[in-house]
């Protein structure tokens, strides 16, 4: 961490607080019925996306999955447009057409979240292929879960990327579960990162609660990518505090994981971990940290207001955005 700038450290803390407050507020307004549909809280996993995205530029690409709010916010997406999207409003990132699982901001390299597990993995690989064909040095990064790692799409993409030495970072967020299924019951090896060997690709196991560790590991992978040295598989060990999805009330907590396990992970809360480092190293005071949290809370509140005040799309907009080169509706 010697060679991690203060600017990056502070930005990481800011974005982690932003995501935390965003998610907490989303849970509140969702349960108040302000919008419906599924939404998958990222609380507890903030260090993963934030640390990883800190190693990227705006000209690099990311793609994500159903647990979809943390990734775009970590890459610098607009909290207002994200919130408005969840509210299904015209000022949302997708004009209300995508919702929680489909946030995207192509202007800063966010190629979009995806509701179908692992379906972003080939897409991100293709963005990296473009870098290779064009001889440019951008990289592409894809977030996917421990559950997702069992999909064939991952195998095919990793093999392709390794074969062609594409600048793609496969970032597996191992939060221990896919819905109610422990990764020990879905992945036949102990460490998903060990699967990198099957592609002759570097595989790295990282503490996903430690934003700095995430940043450093990703920075290395990104450097390799830019240098034309191919892909990297990073497995971030992390944990989701909340239930799989808002709206899946049937599954009670105790049935598939213990309170002890949750408590244990909460002790290594990623925001605490980073704040402890920053304060103990004298980079920020606790007061400064708290001020960051407050500022981000306010930003989220503003976004909620923004979203509430944004109009719904007009019925005439139903068919818009189907085609880049429009054709008549049948």
């Amino acid at each position, binding site marked *: 961490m010697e060679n991690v700038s203060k600017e990056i450290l502070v930005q990481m803390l800011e974005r982690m607080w932003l995501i935390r407050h965003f998610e907490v507020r989303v849970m509140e307004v969702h349960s108040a019925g302000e919008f419906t*549909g599924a939404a998958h809280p990222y609380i507890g996993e903030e260090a993963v996306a934030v640390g990883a995205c800190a190693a990227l530029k705006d000209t690099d690409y990311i793609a994500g999955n159903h647990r979809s709010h943390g990734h775009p916010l970590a890459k610098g997406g607009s909290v207002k447009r994200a919130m408005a999207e969840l509210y299904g409003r015209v000022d949302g990132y997708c004009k209300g057409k995508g*919702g929680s699982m489909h946030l995207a901001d192509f202007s800063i390299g966010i190629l979009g979240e995806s*509701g179908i597990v692992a379906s972003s993995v080939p897409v991100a690989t293709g963005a990296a292929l473009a870098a290779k064909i064009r001889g440019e040095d951008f990289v592409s990064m894809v977030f996917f879960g421990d559950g997702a790692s069992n*999909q064939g799409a991952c195998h095919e993409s990793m093999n392709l990327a390794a074969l062609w030495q594409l600048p793609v970072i496969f970032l597996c967020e191992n939060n221990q579960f*896919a819905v109610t299924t422990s990764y020990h019951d879905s992945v036949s090896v102990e460490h998903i990162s060990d699967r990198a060997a099957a592609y002759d690709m570097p595989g790295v196991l990282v503490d996903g609660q430690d934003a700095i560790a995430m940043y450093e590991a990703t920075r290395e992978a990104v450097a390799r990518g830019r240098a034309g040295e191919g892909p990297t598989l990073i497995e971030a060990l992390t944990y989701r505090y909340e239930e799989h999805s808002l709206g899946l009330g049937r*599954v009670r907590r105790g049935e598939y994981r213990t309170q002890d396990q949750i408590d244990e992970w909460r002790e290594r809360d990623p925001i605490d971990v980073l704040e402890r480092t920053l304060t103990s190293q004298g980079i920020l005071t606790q007061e400064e940290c708290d001020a960051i949290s407050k500022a981000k809370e306010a930003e989220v509140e503003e976004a909620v207001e923004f979203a509430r005040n944004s109009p719904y*799309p007009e019925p005439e907009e139903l068919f818009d955005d189907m085609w880049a080169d429009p054709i008549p509706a049948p």
Partner: protein
Amino acid sequence: MASNAIYVEAINQAIIEEMARDQSVFIMGEDIRRSVYGATAGLLDQFGEKRVLDTPLSENGFFGAAIGASLVGMRPIVETLTSFMWVAMDQLVSQAAKMRYMFGGQATLPVVYRATMFYGGGSAAHHSDRSYPMFMNMPGFKILVPATPRDAKGLLKTAIRDNDPCIVFEDGTLGGSSGEVEEGEAALVPFGVADVPRSGTDVTVVAIAGAVPMALRSAEELEDEGVSVEVIDPRTLVPLDKDAILESVAKTGRLVVADPAHKVCSAASEVASIVSQEGFWDLQAPIMKVAAEQVHIPYTPVLERLVYPSSEKISDAVRATLED
């Protein structure tokens, strides 16, 4: 013994009754032991880990494993959502649908895919597929679209006993609807026999899955206008009870088809094409298709609700067949 049940409970009953009846029946899917989608509640306790399998996220893999197990004497039930079938399309089409014919009848595949259609509740484009028309185009699947708890239970029980690959498209918009269901043998509902939940004389409305209650509402409204609507629920799309449809059109001379799937190459298109060929001389008016607009499912509720059929759209279509 008849009792009342909601649609999801009816499915649960069917699974329990058939698993109790036949040791070769087992069920697999994601997070089914803890019944995340509701239909598999209690199975683990009653039937144990060997017959109630939680799978990794590998639809192509485990849909195919179900096929392999069925070939050697098991009767698998696979739980999924329609939107996850794309991932497994190769095993569904290349193997489940084609294998028996390709092997000259040697293969028997008593496998049931239960696919929930999750539309209408703000699930957006990735989770809202109503894909039965695509599977209808591909020979080899029996395709069931229950619109009531009775049919959800009865058709699933029949499917589990059937020796061919069946896909049950369970309509999520009906998941909480309730109705009477039978028990045991009395609950079985045959394939290829349409239900006529309402008879009438002026216009035939063929309605599929979630469109059935809409058609019934529309029929009630139209009664006040003096229009007598006959509602036909095919219940199974493969096989399709085309005689029931043709007979009804022979009586009414007018046809509306209401279908929650995308309208191009839809089940509604198919029904229209059958009647325009085989029932042509009975027709006194254009055949009206009321199906989903040819657009993806938008997340925002203000747009989503515009996409699907509705009782209003059905009523308008019925009225249109009465103009000239």
